[in-house]
């Protein structure tokens, strides 16, 4: 296995390794944040050691909190949720499942991976430059992100590196998207029609189509933002701004323009994270029910519908931006319409289980967990999709709860399901089943304990992206809830070590797997 390999299997594993590395950084950052939220005044030696400027004497500054939040979100969204389900699993298994010798462009594939790796390094470098990591969140709204150092530590070089990293990620994703689509269109085995492909391939296909159009819009957004910072343009910077008592000279730009560009990418991005998981879950549920997927064609079409509708709903992230109420209604109706194909998928999953001979393997547990989380997180989406309710809930912990359940955790459950399911192909061994199930139950309990209470914090109007709640009288009542949530977070993070151990141990010592241990019908089990 060479470092600059062009073999799709090696590249798939490289993407997964990159994600695994990233996810533990992301988890660590989240623990630091959760700790700080319930102990805002405690001085911590470790913080001072890691961030001498951000935590002088061990006392975390509000700016440091925001920079941790930015890096947590960016790492998780781009380098975990966008990377493993699509680029990791997709590279490894797409060619096997459609009977292709490799991806259509192996060298391009290798370049995509290394561009992604460079993008990650660029992002992490932001921690080590003067001022540290940027503060403006994974959404990087200007003017905060557009004016440079004056808006805070981390808003200098740190924010430049962030934008550069995202631009590199866009380029890598565009190359990967072209590779995936060409592979599916041109390299299917003779006689295999589109509707003969496993639903996993449909998931990767639709995701690649979405990536092709979404990243092509984020890239211009990033370029224009970088120019606002470095070349003195005013694409997004409005006139009359006074920052830290200094009048800004730029004028005429529109921060809302950036929001439109960002969310035109951002909403499809959430489907980029979840669609490969949907495909995978369909397969796992069907294999372990001993039945074919119920309504195969409807499932494939529902994915296309979700992907297509995903491009016309971005305004639901901007209901409070002052848009015309008529636009709000249009975006709201379209948003709620996404519920239809989503429900088609959910009911078809249930129908796939119905009357089946269920085998409760670890992968099956995660797949069922995925369905549960998809429903819990999806229902709050329908709440947020209504402007009247969203005006209240926007920028509260209710949104944090919504997207963590559906995007964060559901997609991660799909990753766990996929790793348990395909481990025999990837390493010739099983992940330990007992340990896997134990990890499932603890994680499942942990995520519900962590994220369900956050909805209630949202009811109270608890804003997100605030480093210290005790400054606000009306938030006193939610502090006990936050203490509970923080403990759930510790628990959840600790439990992940079980998985890490299982993964590393089983790679070398796990029980040897026979050729097709689950009795699956798709090609990847024949080829190997």
């Amino acid at each position, binding site marked *: 296995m060479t470092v600059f390999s062009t073999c799709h299997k090696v590249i798939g594993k490289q993407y997964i390794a990159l994600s695994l590395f990233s996810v533990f950084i992301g988890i660590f950052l989240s623990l630091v944040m959760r700790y700080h939220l319930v102990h805002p005044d405690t001085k911590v030696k470790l913080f001072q050691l890691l961030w001498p400027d951000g935590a002088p004497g061990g006392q975390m500054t509000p700016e440091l909190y925001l920079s941790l939040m930015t890096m947590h979100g960016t790492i998780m969204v781009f380098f975990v949720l966008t990377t493993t389900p699509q680029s990791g699993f997709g590279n490894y298994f797409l060619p096997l499942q459609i009977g292709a010798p490799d991806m259509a462009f192996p060298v391009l594939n290798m370049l995509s991976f290394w561009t992604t790796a460079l993008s990650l390094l660029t992002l992490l470098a932001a921690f080590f430059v003067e001022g540290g990591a940027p503060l403006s969140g994974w959404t990087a709204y200007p003017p905060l992100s557009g004016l440079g150092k004056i808006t805070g530590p981390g808003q200098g070089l740190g924010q430049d590196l962030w934008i550069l990293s995202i631009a590199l990620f866009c380029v890598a994703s565009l190359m990967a998207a*072209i590779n995936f689509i*060409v592979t599916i269109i041109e390299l299917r085995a003779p006689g295999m029609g589109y509707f003969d492909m496993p639903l996993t391939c449909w998931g990767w296909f639709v995701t690649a189509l979405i990536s*092709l*159009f979404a990243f092509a819009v984020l890239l211009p*957004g990033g*370029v224009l933002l970088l120019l606002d910072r470095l070349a003195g343009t005013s694409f997004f910077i409005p006139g009359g701004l006074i920052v830290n008592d200094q009048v800004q000279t730029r004028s*005429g*730009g529109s921060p809302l323009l950036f929001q439109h*560009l960002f969310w035109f990418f951002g909403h499809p991005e959430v489907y980029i994270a979840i669609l490969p998981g949907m495909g995978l879950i369909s397969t796992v549920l069907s294999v372990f029910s001993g039945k074919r997927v119920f309504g195969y064609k409807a499932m494939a079409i529902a994915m296309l519908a979700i992907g297509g509708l995903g491009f016309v709903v971005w305004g639901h992230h901007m209901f409070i931006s002052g848009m015309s109420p008529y636009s709000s209604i249009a975006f709201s109706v379209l948003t709620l319409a996404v519920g239809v194909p989503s429900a088609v998928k959910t009911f078809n999953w249930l129908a796939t289980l119905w009357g089946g001979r269920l085998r409760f393997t670890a992968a099956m547990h995660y797949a069922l967990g995925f369905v549960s989380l998809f429903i819990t997180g999806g229902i709050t989406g329908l709440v947020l999709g209504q402007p009247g309710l969203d005006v209240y809930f926007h920028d509260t912990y209710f949104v944090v709860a919504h997207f963590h359940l559906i995007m964060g955790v559901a997609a991660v459950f799909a990753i766990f399901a996929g790793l348990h399911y395909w481990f025999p192909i990837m390493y010739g061994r099983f992940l330990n089943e007992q340990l896997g199930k134990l990890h499932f139950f603890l994680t499942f309990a942990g995520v519900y304990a962590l994220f369900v209470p956050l909805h209630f914090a949202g009811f109270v109007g608890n804003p997100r992206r605030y480093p210290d709640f005790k400054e606000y009288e009306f938030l006193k009542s939610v502090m006990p809830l936050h203490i509970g949530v923080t403990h759930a977070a510790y628990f959840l993070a600790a439990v992940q070590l079980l998985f890490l151990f299982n993964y590393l141990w089983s790679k070398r010592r796990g029980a040897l797997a026979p050729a097709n241990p689950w009795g699956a019908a798709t090609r990847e089990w024949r080829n190997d």
Partner: protein
Amino acid sequence: MTNVARSAQVLLIAASSMLFAAFTSAMVVRRGIGGDWAAPPLPAWVLPTILFAPLASWLLHQRRVKPAMAAGAALVAAQIALLAHFRMAVIGEAFCAVLIAVHALHAAAGVLALGRFGASAAIFWHFVGLLWIYVLFLFGVWA
């Protein structure tokens, strides 16, 4: 040309079109709400470069790859010279500079692709020509 090469180029064109659509819509919005729009001044010698598209496509049609590459390189050189004309602090000129620079990247990529893949890269090459007409129209007429 293989099917793989054709599909890849069609997809690349789709992505590039999306990219230019995003820049264009940003420009439309920014022009509409900024209240500080002024048409970017284009030097007169830009006009003849509109002939690049038919010339480049015709050359390739004649299978004259090297001259087509030379035409592309000449266009990129002209575009780089053009960039010096714009002041980034003036919004119309900034958009003009950005779109020309992004087009120059496409044209340079097209030249490299011709060098590497010869006439197989024709579809992308025609697209680069058309795109240049679009950019000229955008700033010469619309803006």
